[in-house]
């Protein structure tokens, strides 16, 4: 059950801290997925700190799956704040002897499924939601996906299946940053769009919002009817918050050098909350 008194300003402030935290981590490794983590931060943070029912009991609480596993830092910083994963793990990100790396692994605290290969999370979610229905469990499954991921055929198998099976407890959020590795999604596959109509035609309830606006995300998800599975398209900017990273493909994976790091931190600080 979402929190009734949602504090969007707190989520914005949190995302600002998270961006700084991810930039700090970037100085300890040669490469990491900053830009794809920055684009989905508000979606992830609004899920964890507004929408999800977090009881601490895995039998009753809502589930979160980051199907775009390469955005793992966006989830790790939230789990760090929640105390689910220790700070030392993030400070030793991608280091031997510590469990956090580029993609989330099942078995790590707070991680409900191993992701990293795109197109797996939604199928897993359908199975989990089916089991919950079978066992009378009342809980939602939140899943964050990338727009490039929606090019995987397996995603469309899952999109077809979930509403056909009467599954209603999936809330999927698509990080619509319009970028995949080799260019703009809208240019690589122009017929990818319009997306909203396709999703609705497959039997999903779907809305499109500004994916960096926590209040808009919260409102769209809480207003859903609950009669169908729900999928939110969040329009986002890859690398959001650092001007020189925004919509520049190299920052999909590059780590900033010390000079770039300073500028990036400054831009995050100057950005309004």
């Amino acid at each position, binding site marked *: 059950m979402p929190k009734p008194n949602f504090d969007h300003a707190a989520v914005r402030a949190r995302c600002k801290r998270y961006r700084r935290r991810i930039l700090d981590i970037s100085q300890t490794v040669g490469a990491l997925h900053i830009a794809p983590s920055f684009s989905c931060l508000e979606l992830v943070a609004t899920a964890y700190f507004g929408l999800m029912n977090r009881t601490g009991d895995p039998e009753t609480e809502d589930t979160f799956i980051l199907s775009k596993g390469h955005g793992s830092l966006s989830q790790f910083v939230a789990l760090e704040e929640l105390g689910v994963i220790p700070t030392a793990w993030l400070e030793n990100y991608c280091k031997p002897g510590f469990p956090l790396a580029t993609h989330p692994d099942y078995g790590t605290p707070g991680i409900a499924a191993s992701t990293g290969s795109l197109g797996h999370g939604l199928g897993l979610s359908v*199975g989990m939601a089916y089991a919950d229905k079978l066992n009378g469990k009342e809980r939602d499954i939140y899943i964050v996906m990338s727009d490039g991921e929606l090019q995987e055929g*397996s995603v469309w198998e899952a999109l077809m299946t979930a509403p056909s099976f009467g599954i209603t407890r999936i809330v999927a959020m698509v990080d619509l940053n319009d970028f995949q590795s080799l260019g703009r999604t809208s240019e690589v596959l122009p017929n990818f769009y319009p997306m909203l109509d396709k999703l609705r035609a497959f039997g999903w309830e779907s809305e499109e919002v500004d994916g960096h606006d926590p209040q808009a995300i919260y409102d769209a998800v809480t207003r859903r009817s609950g009669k169908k599975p729900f999928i939110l398209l969040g329009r986002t900017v890859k690398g959001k918050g650092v001007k020189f990273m925004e919509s520049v493909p190299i920052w999909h994976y590059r780590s900033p050098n010390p000079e770039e790091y300073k500028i990036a931190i400054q831009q995050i600080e100057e950005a309004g909350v």
Partner: protein
Amino acid sequence: MRNSFANAFYEIAKNDRRVCLVVADITAAAGVASFQKESPERFINVGVAEQMMVGLCAGLALRGCIPVAYTIATFTIYRPFEQVRVDCCYQNLPVKLVGVGGGVNYSTLGGTHHAQEDVALMSAIPNMTVIAPCDPAETAACTKASLIEIPGPVYLRLGKAGEPDLTANAPDPFRLGKVRMIKPGTDVCILSFGPITKMACDIAARLESEKRISTGVVSVHSLKPLDTAGIAALLARFRVVVVIEEHAPFGGLGPQVKSIAWDSGARCKLRTYALKDEFIHVYGSHSDLLGAHGLDPELIFREVAELAS
């Protein structure tokens, strides 16, 4: 074998609500039909969508279910290979993948329906168990073991229908993961798995009646983990060991037995027979297909008789 699986499955599933059957528009009769009627919510047909079938199974398993995926072997594991590897094996979940018609059993359907490299592919994935029973009774035992005894993912490779009983008089009982003598012998030992074990039994009978060569037959139902110690003991005990397998010449039983022979310093004669490393365009009965692949009982009989003389 299909019916034997279906009935064994039903006996377990009717009493264990964690067990689900997930099919991709292909199903079994017998006990599965009863299960579908009595527990429709646990019989899930995803349609012609095998990635969904395996992904959904993994999702069910993440919630504590014991899902069984069932379709023709090629579609159970080849189409959704990455879901098998990542969703089931990387996460080490109790998903049981049943492949019907392993090998070239679908003899008139062509190469699209021939699972001739399945054991190699499935054995190569960490956490996976690979099981291939030789007859209906072993199918029942392997189905129970897969669902009850083996905690992780399993690939259960089945034949189709009409396989004869080969194990009613077996000197060894079925023990999961162990090689099993199903016909005794002292001179030659033939190792096999799956429905082609019938060919091994026929060749053994002819070697005895026509050549007075005492020939044992061993069912190696567990390809992974392989009973290395049991196979090493057979290599030490028999002067001639033969492997007959309905599988590509790579990554199946034959190469592993040769490897064990080297490691254990075996002194026996060893001959292996497998499918060719080819897509053949020959149609006919299952036997016709095996013959076209060089798995000809007459040829193997003559060669083994010569080897043992």
